[in-house]
């Protein structure tokens, strides 16, 4: 079809208010993932533990023989431990390509030539991963708490464990922020999402294996801070008021996590640039 009019036309759409352009990236990203059947399958699988726990809570509340299923604060901590596998898979599936694919398609320059700052771009991408991870950690955990109240027909459990709601919220956010920033930083380091995914898996499993060897060598778990996932376990135990599993003081684990987030922010600051200047 011939083009008769090659004149310039002004943009007729609405512009997001200053500081809110990141929501455009987040919305578009979420729409992309929710449009994939594989992602929906993964999401459903990630909720499987919630369904099992719901049945357990129902049985504990209604059948005297199943009273041993009654939830305790430890149940919620264990819920997060089991969800770690799904968090890992979801992080690799969603996060590996978030920046790497844009770098591969040279889309970063196009993004940053729009009225969008680097911070907004990074925050928009971060929000995609964080939202989807909270959807399989914080949301089901809170729903489990609500389910407990509904099936028990009283607030006794929640009232006697008043710290559970803030603990679930705090641990979910610590977990999700740590995982998301690390993955995003790794994603900015390469053009290949597959390479990024493997790097992340390497960091998680290799650091844990190194810690296990050192634990065998030293006979103590003082060096647990070298493992990415163990640091989160340690902080989780403290937040849920359970005795920590490892000898490392929890402030050391917290410091390692904060260091990891800061290092990821520095990597993102250096790697997410509209124009790469090669000396």
């Amino acid at each position, binding site marked *: 079809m011939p083009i008769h009019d090659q004149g310039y036309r002004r943009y007729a759409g609405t512009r997001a208010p200053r500081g809110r352009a990141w929501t455009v990236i987040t919305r578009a990203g979420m729409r992309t993932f929710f449009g994939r059947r*594989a992602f929906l399958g993964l999401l459903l699988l990630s909720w499987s533990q919630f369904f099992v726990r719901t049945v357990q809570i129902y049985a504990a509340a209604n059948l005297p023989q199943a009273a041993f299923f009654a939830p305790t604060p430890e149940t919620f901590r264990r819920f997060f431990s089991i969800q770690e*596998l799904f968090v*890992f*898979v979801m992080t*690799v*599936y969603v996060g*590996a390509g978030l920046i790497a694919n844009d770098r591969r398609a040279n889309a970063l320059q196009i993004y940053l030539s729009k009225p969008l700052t680097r911070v907004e771009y990074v925050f928009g991408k971060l929000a995609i991963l964080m939202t989807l991870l909270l959807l399989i950690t914080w949301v089901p955990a809170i729903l489990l708490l609500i389910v407990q109240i509904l099936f028990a027909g009283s607030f006794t459990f929640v009232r006697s464990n008043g710290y559970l709601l803030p603990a679930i919220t705090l641990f979910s956010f610590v977990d999700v922020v740590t995982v998301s920033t690390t993955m995003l930083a790794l994603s900015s380091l*390469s053009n*290949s*999402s*597959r*390479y990024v*995914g*493997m*790097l992340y*898996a*390497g960091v998680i*499993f*290799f650091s844990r*294996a*190194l810690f*296990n*060897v*050192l*634990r*065998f*060598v*030293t*006979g*103590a778990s003082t060096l647990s801070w070298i493992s990415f996932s163990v640091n989160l376990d340690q902080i989780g135990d403290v937040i849920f008021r359970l005795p920590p599993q490892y000898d490392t003081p929890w402030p050391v684990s917290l410091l390692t996590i904060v260091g990891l987030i800061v290092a990821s922010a520095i990597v993102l600051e250096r790697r997410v640039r509209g124009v790469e200047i090669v000396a």
Partner: protein
Amino acid sequence: MTPPATHATPTVLASTARIFDLSLGQMLWSRRSVFLAFLVGGPVLLAAGIRVVSAADRLGLPQINGARVGGAALFGTMIWLLYVRVIVPVLGVFYGTSLVADEVDDKTITYLFTRPIPRAAVLFGKYLAYLVCTVLLVLPSVVFVYFLVAPIGGTIGEAFPTLVADLGMLAVGLTAYGAVFAWVGARMRRPLVVGLVFTFGWEPVVLVVPGYLKRLTVAYYLQALVPHAMPRDSPVSVLLQVFSGGPSVPTSLASLAAIAVVALWWAGRSVEKQEYVLEQ
């Protein structure tokens, strides 16, 4: 007018050798080598650190009946925790899934498929390159670790026969995992996620389930070949020892060989039949 020249189509073997030659250099000098160096260099650095600290006699190695556990046991633990459970499966997933997927992502698979060679030879050649590349880097790393760690509280010769068995076992593991994930990479659109779920989700879970399900893993047969006692580093390991009674060495070797051959054959068939759609 001269008659058109007749070209004999190269055999699968000759084509495989050509692709192998082409791929080996690419694999050794690529971005992936950094990852590989990190994985195989880590244990060597750790072993060197342990050796230095052991010289100052500041290691708290566990004691059994009053005698301190020696370097041979430490070497066995490193083989289990680092190589068998992490390095071999991770390398298998990473390289195996990349054999075809990398070419699809880079949109270069067309160049290979338009050559007058059987499509399957492309995969076989790349697989052989993966095997040579990883075996040549992983096995020396194990040897370095052995020579650094074995002399701690013992002699180098003490555990030497197990070193040979370890090297063979790791080579077999790389062969089997690589073949399985080559098939996954040739067949599926998102091979990495599938590979990671299989390695770090399916295998560890199924191995502690009583019954036949564990036979649907590579780890079940590979772990039966490890000549060292499994370390009790987690409740899962304890459960694994409770449900021990793995296959014999000949059964494991035969099973791993069968897994590798069948997976490679499937991968070859997939490459021959599948239509790879390149993103525009």
